[in-house]
Every structure is written in structure tokens, then in C-alpha cells.
């Protein structure tokens, strides 16, 4: 793919997944979730804000399409459980929106855009712990870029992306950014 074909190629680096590839990855993950959970019974999808949430809703849409099964969907904000709160100024909270039936006894699939250090997922597990007792927790990510700092792995991965820690991986989604793409670029000055 030519870098110039993407309108943000200059600013955010190189596109490694385009809209079609993201769509296919999500379709595969949706099938894998159905397979691994024996038909998606008692499954809840919880997206981690910001971009995990539209991904969770997209997966729920695919599952509804394939199996005519309505999978409850929600969002789980992990800000208050993060371990790096004191390294930044206090940040605005995302939204936590649980399906009415709660998480007790369900198989919760956490959905996020990028899996990196694993710290966000650890925070999500802690946040979930305060909300109830799921039967099992699984993790779905669009991109796994490696460099884990905690013993955490994803159950469903859209794309494994070997990266250097100096690189920045950004997932763009139509619901938030106006277009679908996964970008990889060099760290810029002033960025964390």
C-alpha cells in the first residue's frame, strides 16, 4: 500500500492495517469468540474507552449478523484503577456502562485497541473485580504490539505487530477519528 493513499500517512507514520483489513480481523475475532465460548452463550463484551468501546460494539454487530445472537455490550473505564495516575495530571474519566444484567456468572470479553505493557488490562481486571464476579474473563485486541510488562496475554488478536518501544502505534476508528486505520510511526517530541 502506498503511504500517500492515506490522508494521515504524513502525520502518524505508516498505515499497517487499512479499513478492509480491520474489518476482516474483526470478522475473524467475532468467529473465534463464538467458537471459543461455544456459541457465545452468556458472553458480555466490554470495551475499554476510548477506542475499545466502538470495537466492542462492532464485534457485537458481527456476532448478531452471524448467529442472530444479541450479545450485551458495554464499556469499562479503568482510569481510577490505573497504576500510573501519579505520573500525569488527573485525567477526565471515561464512561462505564454495564449491561443491565451485570457481569456475575458471565464470560466477559474485554476489548481494547492496542495491547502493549498490559497495564491497562490489569487495571481493567481490577475494575471488573469491583463490579461483580464473572465466570471467566477473556481479552480481545485489534493489535498486539508486544513489550509486555505484566503476565498478561490476549485470547483474540487482530494482528501481531512487532514494534520497537520507540515507535508509536495508533488505531484510528471511524466512530472516533472519522476513518479506519492502524498507523505506526516514530515517537515525536512531547509525546509520552
Amino acid at each position, binding site marked *: 500500500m502506498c503511504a500517500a493513499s492515506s490522508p494521515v500517512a504524513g502525520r502518524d507514520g505508516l498505515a499497517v492495517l487499512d479499513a478492509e483489513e480491520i474489518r476482516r480481523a474483526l470478522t475473524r475475532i467475532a468467529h473465534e469468540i463464538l467458537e471459543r465460548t461455544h456459541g457465545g452463550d452468556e458472553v458480555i463484551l466490554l470495551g475499554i474507552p476510548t477506542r475499545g468501546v466502538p470495537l466492542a460494539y462492532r464485534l457485537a454487530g458481527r456476532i448478531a449478523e452471524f448467529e442472530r445472537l444479541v450479545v450485551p455490550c*458495554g464499556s469499562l473505564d479503568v482510569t*481510577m484503577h490505573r497504576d500510573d495516575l*501519579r505520573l500525569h*495530571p488527573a485525567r477526565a*474519566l471515561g*464512561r462505564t456502562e454495564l449491561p443491565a444484567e451485570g457481569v456475575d456468572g458471565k464470560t466477559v470479553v474485554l476489548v481494547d485497541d492496542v495491547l502493549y505493557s498490559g497495564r491497562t488490562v490489569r487495571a481493567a481486571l481490577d475494575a471488573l473485580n*469491583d463490579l461483580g464476579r464473572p465466570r471467566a474473563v477473556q481479552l480481545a485486541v485489534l493489535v498486539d504490539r508486544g513489550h509486555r510488562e505484566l503476565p498478561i496475554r490476549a485470547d483474540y488478536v487482530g494482528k501481531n505487530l512487532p514494534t520497537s518501544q520507540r515507535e508509536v502505534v495508533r488505531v484510528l476508528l471511524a466512530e472516533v477519528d472519522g476513518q479506519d486505520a492502524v498507523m505506526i510511526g516514530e515517537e515525536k517530541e512531547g509525546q509520552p
Partner: protein
Amino acid sequence: MKRHLISAADLSRADALLILDTAEELAQLADRPIKKLPTLRGRTVVNLFYEDSTRTRISFEAAAKRLSADVINFSAKGSSVAKGESLKDTALTLEAMGADAVVIRHPASGAAHRLAGWVRGSVLNAGDGTHEHPTQALLDAFTIRRRLRGGTGGRAAPPYAGGSGGSSPRASGALDGVRVTIVGDVLHSRVARSNVLLLSTLGAEVTLAAPPTLLPLAVGSWPCAVSYDLDSELPKSDVVMMLRVQQERMNAAYFPSVREYSRRYGLDVARMARLPDHAIVMHPGPMNRGVEIAAEVADSSRSTIVEQVANGVTTRMAVLYLLLGGTEFPAVTQ
């Protein structure tokens, strides 16, 4: 946001909205089995109360505990203050104990401001004399926004719930165009001053309705209108906020008799009927039932008095989180 919360005037419109939006998210905690977050684990919040208080102290204590902070309660009665210790010496003692935040209530206006110069942690003004009570104004703004701008939470999730979507079932945005009438003893009220400042920052139109003797001299410089006639203000009010007649601060005759005050400025059932259908009645508490507010009004469905107490915990959690939850301020480490 600044490091301290001394005055409602310290808050920009963006700061105030951030606090209200944060409180809106934290409000959900009340419906959860575990009403606690680990965010302020290891931080110490000192409640320094030189004046009697029920709801503010308990509210701050509950807010800090729900965020897992350690809370030390200090009341002037039964402490070394009774032996003549000055505010500054008490402040230095707290400083030595490593308080990350000090919540202060003091009978002298300006006490919180002075304290902020002596301690390294954040200072939260919980009422200083007749000056300000900014967290009360925040919880009042939060209550107004929830009641008048919809969003009680718990409704169906939007198809896509990320970001700050307009389809949000939660209350959001400012209070532009909301007409608020604050009634009664403005002269002695820190709640009135903080509310006038904060509500006008948020775009509300505030009118003070009070006898001339109970209005401060400088009221002309406040960002609000003034009226001596409550009855003419009621039909155009979205919110009526009744203030307590603070007899303990009154050292002169501000009105001929309690009965006359009550007849002209008290909110009874007949006056409540003059309000528009959607209007709400607020009171910061504690109430003098039968003086500024009739018991039937206080217990009516329009009254938000109990809601204000619940919202107080949520709003104070938001303030504590935003002041203490992040990195320490550069000014502290220098």
C-alpha cells in the same frame, strides 16, 4: 485546575464542567455493590473543622473514604486549639504529619486562603466565615444540571458510547440560560456568594431576592441581579434556592420579626404554586422549617434537599480526585 479550591471564582468554565462531568461518572458508584475506588490509596486527607458541621464534614469524609484515602478528622473542640494554638501552628502540625489535602471550615473569612500559604498539600475550602463554600456551589450546580438537563443515568446504552457523544443519557453541558433565584440571608451566606460566582461562570442567570438589610454592600459588583420582591421573581425562576437565616451570625436587628421575614421571604405552599411546573426548590441545609421554608415545601417532590446531600458526596469525590488523583504539582516539588 489550580492546586487549591478556595473560591468558586478560581474555577474556569472548563474546570467547573470537568468537575461536574467527573461527578456524573462517579455518581454511578452509588448503584454498585462495592462503592469504593482505589484511586487515592495512601493519600491522607485531613478534615480541619473549627465550626460545627454535620453534612459537610461527613460528606467530605465519605468522599475521601470512597476513594480509599486515609481520613483524619480534627475538630477544634477537644484539641489544642482549646488551649490557644493558632491556625498556623495547627497547620504546621498537619504539615509534619504529611497531609496531602486539608479540608478546612473556619468561622473567619479568608482562613482557607491563609492556610494555603502554610501547607504543601491542597487546601479545600469547606466554608470560611461569610466568604465562600465552593463545594456547596458545585454540588448545587450538579443537582440543577441533573434535574433540569435530564440524565439520571441507568438508561439504555447508546449504540456507540465512546467519547462525549451527544446521545448521552447523562446530564452534560453548562447551565446557560437557567434562571436561579437565591432567596434570603445573602449577607451572612458563603453559599450564596459561591453559587453566584459558579452559576454565572456556568452561564446561569442569577437573581438575589432578599430584604435590603440582608444584602452585602458590594452586591452591585456581583455578576447577578438583585430584587427585593420575591413574589415577582418566582414565576420566572427555574430554580429557587432558599438560604438559612443565620441567627448565630446576626448581631443586629436585620428584620422586625421572624414572622414578618417568613411572610415576605419564606417559601410556603402558596408561593411554591407560583413557580413554573418544572422548577425545583433547593436548600443547602440545615433548614429552619417554618422560617425560610415551610415543612410541606421542604418535603415536596420539587425539593432537592435530600438529593443535594447525596450529590455532595459525589461532587466532593470528583474534586478530591481532580486535585489529588494526578501527579503532584510542580510547585510542590520545587
